[in-house]
């Protein structure tokens, strides 16, 4: 079975999530799996579907800093996305994956793990939705199932800036913020900290594209031209992912 591939480069959070949703419709209609690689520019905060925006993010500070704050269609926690991360979305018909949600997370994450093994990084799947290296988190993933498809997106940390991460995220108790940051620094890492020569977004993209192709037994990747979806993406970006109605839903 062939699949489609696209690398949309570094774009805003509202664009990225509008793009995911439009591509979900495409996969639902055609049955053809789509793999997309991308990053976030400018720096953005995204929250899980079930999170309260004001409970998680200092939105006033974020607005002042020009950081876009967007709700995802998937669950999970709040994430600061900067340019030191690699992000993927894989969308495929539900029948191509285990019906067991836990297992399907592992099936998809396996391609990230096998790619990292090629770099001699012994990463492991950490249920429910993380990938760890030496017990430190390097990747968070989130999945939704809609319209007969599974959409999973995830972030792989190339480098990590925990201080930036906490600059806009609210913490339960300000008095222990410093302690919390120190603790997260121990529990989170970027892959470049473990490599002799830092890997770039393009280099990791090349490796992971090959791994997804191999692990899902796709016959080949064909490039997907995004231009035919531009107007749908723009519409969704402005009407949904840039709207208070969606972003402040909870």
């Amino acid at each position, binding site marked *: 079975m062939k699949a489609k591939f696209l690398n949309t480069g570094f774009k805003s959070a509202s664009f990225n999530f509008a793009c995911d949703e439009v591509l979900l419709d495409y996969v639902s209609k055609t049955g053809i799996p789509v793999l997309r690689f991308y990053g976030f520019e400018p720096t953005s905060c995204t929250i899980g579907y*079930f999170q309260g925006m004001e409970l998680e993010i200092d939105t006033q500070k974020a607005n002042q800093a020009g950081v876009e704050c967007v709700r995802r269609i998937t669950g999970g926690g709040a994430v600061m996305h900067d340019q030191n991360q690699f992000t993927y979305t894989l969308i495929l018909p539900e029948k191509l994956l285990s019906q067991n949600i836990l297992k399907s997370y592992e099936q998809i994450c396996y391609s990230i793990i096998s790619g990292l093994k090629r770099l001699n990084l012994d990463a492991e799947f950490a249920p*429910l939705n993380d990938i760890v290296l030496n017990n430190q988190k390097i990747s968070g993933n989130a999945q939704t*199932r809609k319209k007969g498809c599974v959409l999973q997106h995830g972030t792989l940390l190339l480098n990590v800036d925990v201080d930036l991460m906490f600059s806009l995220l609210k913490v339960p108790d300000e008095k222990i913020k410093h302690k919390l940051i120190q603790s997260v620094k121990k529990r989170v890492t970027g892959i470049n900290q473990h490599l002799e020569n830092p890997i770039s977004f393009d280099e990791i993209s090349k490796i992971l594209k090959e791994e997804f192709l191999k692990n899902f037994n796709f016959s080949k990747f064909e490039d997907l031209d995004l231009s035919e979806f531009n107007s749908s993406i723009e519409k969704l970006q402005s009407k949904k992912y840039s709207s208070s109605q969606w972003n402040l839903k909870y």
Partner: protein
Amino acid sequence: MEFKNYKPKNGKLLKIYVEFSGTKIKEFKLRGDFFMHPESSLESLEEFMLNLDMSKNFTQDLEGFLASNQIQVFGFLPQDLYDFLTMQYEG
């Protein structure tokens, strides 16, 4: 509206707003970094929780609601909600 944090053992961080009327739940809002499939089930879960009686079969009722509506939750168990709500009720 004050949400309280609760982190069940091996679970995700929950942020819950609750008000009681006697032993019954009068207001209930659930937020957090958990996963629920389908996502649109949150509102029906919150609605179901209203009028649940803490002194009755809370956990079984909630388990039954999730099963009959084919809702899958990752990050907390019905028992976790019961434990938290009991603390709030008694506290």
